[in-house]
Structure formats: C-alpha cells, structure tokens
C-alpha cells in the first residue's frame, strides 16, 4: 500500500502521519505538496492535522481550495481511500466530501488530552480490525472540533451507521462529561455514504506505540491496510 500525506502551509502533523505509516505500519509513504495535483499513485490519502493557512476564516476553509484538493476530491469520487485527521477532517467538511461542520469548542478552549473513543461501526474500511464497542484511547488536540449538523441530518447519519467513533467514558458511556468539545451526540468521527472517506478529530497517528502512551491508533491504520488489501486482491 502506498500512502500520501498532504502538506498544506501550516500542517504540523504531516511528519507524525508519515512516521506512523513508514516506521510503525511499515508501508510506502510520500508527502504530497498542496500546490501539486499529482497524487503519485497513492492508495490512501491522509489529510493531516495542523493549522492550514493559520486557520484563517474557518479551519480548513482555505486549504480546501488548494490545487491538491481538486485531485483528492476526484480520487474520493472514484472510490479512493481518504482519511482526514483533525484539521484534515475540517478540510473534508469544508470541501463537501463529508457532511456537517466543525465549530469552535463549546468551552472555547483548545483541548489537548487523551480521550476514549467507542467504535460504533466496525464494518467500515477504517475500523475492520476492531469490534463494535471497542474502546480506543487516542489523543485530541484542537480548538474547533465541535461537530455540528442539522438535527434531521444527524439522525440520518446515525441511521446509516456513519458515526464511526464517539467520545465516551472509560466505561464506554457517551456522557456529557466525556464530550471534550460539545460535539452533537458525542460524535468524534464519521464516514461518507460510500464508506471510503473518514474524518476524525482525534489523532490515531499519535497513538501508534505503547511506549508513547497508546497503540490504539495503529488499529485504524491496520484497518485501512486490510481494506486496501481486500480491494487490491493482495
């Protein structure tokens, strides 16, 4: 599997994602420059965390007009695997590949800590090595992660099992106190209708090794690799 990590001006988790894939997952990985339109034949595109364009206007609002994003949108439309982490999730909602919006955290503070995520749907291409109800310990680091969508449309997401991760307590309860940013229904990650585009606020690429706190993020990357191998018949 070949993974492409997009670098926007202001991305700051691109090297984390690169290292996660290259040294832990041990797959091919390339950086993709925002001004290029060439995805270099990658099988998975990662839009990393950070503060693209200084988060001016709204998180991800300017990055979505980068030349590389035209290619990413086409790639996604043809079924390519795309994963947006944190600022990458914001870019995906801004460009319309994922529904809803990520607003300012309800408490207005930047929040940087480990959270517990419950796997709500283990049948996606990003969670296939997990079981439904598994709890992943993965860090967040954001000021605008408050997932919002109109009530009716959120219900549709829920009905279609497109909420992939939810913020929960260590016991797996989706309580208000387990919600770090005010997200509707404690939503931490969603997929598109076709299931090939994931957006999540927490950082799986920062949870790849026990020695650094948690290896639960690795399961997200292992799931994508399994999905790729199934599709490619490897």
């Amino acid at each position, binding site marked *: 599997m070949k993974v492409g990590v997009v670098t926007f001006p202001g991305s700051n988790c691109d090297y984390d994602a690169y290292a996660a894939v290259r040294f832990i997952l041990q797959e091919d990985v390339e950086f993709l420059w925002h001004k290029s339109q060439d995805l270099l034949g990658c099988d998975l595109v990662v839009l990393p965390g950070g503060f693209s364009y200084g988060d001016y*206007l*709204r998180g991800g*609002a*300017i990055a979505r*007009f980068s030349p590389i994003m035209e290619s990413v949108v086409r790639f996604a439309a043809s079924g390519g695997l795309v994963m947006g982490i944190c600022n990458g999730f914001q870019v995906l*909602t*801004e460009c319309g590949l994922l*529904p*809803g*919006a990520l*607003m*300012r*955290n*309800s*408490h*207005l503070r930047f929040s940087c800590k480990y959270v517990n995520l419950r796997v709500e749907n283990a049948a996606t291409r990003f969670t296939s090595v997990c079981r439904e109800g598994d709890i992943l310990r993965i860090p967040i680091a954001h000021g605008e992660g*408050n997932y*919002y*969508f109109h009530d009716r449309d959120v219900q549709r997401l829920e009905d279609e099992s497109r909420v992939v991760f939810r913020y929960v307590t260590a016991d797996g309860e989706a309580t208000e106190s387990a919600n770090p940013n*005010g997200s509707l229904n404690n939503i931490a990650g969603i997929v598109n209708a076709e299931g090939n585009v994931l957006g999540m606020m927490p950082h799986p690429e920062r949870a790849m090794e026990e020695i650094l706190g948690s290896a639960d993020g690795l399961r997200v990357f292992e799931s994508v690799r399994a999905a790729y191998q199934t599709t490619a018949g490897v």
Partner: protein
Amino acid sequence: MANKTKAVVHVRLKEGVLDPQGVTIHKALLQMGYPEFTSVRSGRFFELEIDSESGSADARIEEVCRKLLANPVIETFTVEKPE
C-alpha cells in the same frame, strides 16, 4: 477605466446554532453589571472592493460569500453596498 464597487459582508451563525463566543461575552456583560443585555451573538464582517460596475458585481459577491466567506451549513450572510 473600470468602476470600483465596495461591499460589506456580514457573516453570522444561523439561528439555533449555538454561539459559544456570544454566550461567553454575554456572561461577561452580566458579571460586569449590565443585566439589561439579554443576548449576544457574534459574527464577522468583510469589506470587499471589486473592480467592476456595481450591478454586475452582485452575482460575483454572492458567489464568493457562498463558496468561501460563509459556511452555508452553519452560517448566513448579508451584503450591503455603501453609496
């Protein structure tokens, strides 16, 4: 020479969308001793200068508001053109 048009765009959160910034500012006002202020909603505004006649600029202004300045999922916008 092309005429210049100026426009002021106000972007605000849709009604019903929680505005944590507005809520926090409102709480501060109450603490400061201004109980008669019953609500605060925040937003942002942009001053645009366009190299075209006023009439023909309208559609383009509307377009950039929809595409970039506002996020239609959560925000609305108004355009004013000062004389």
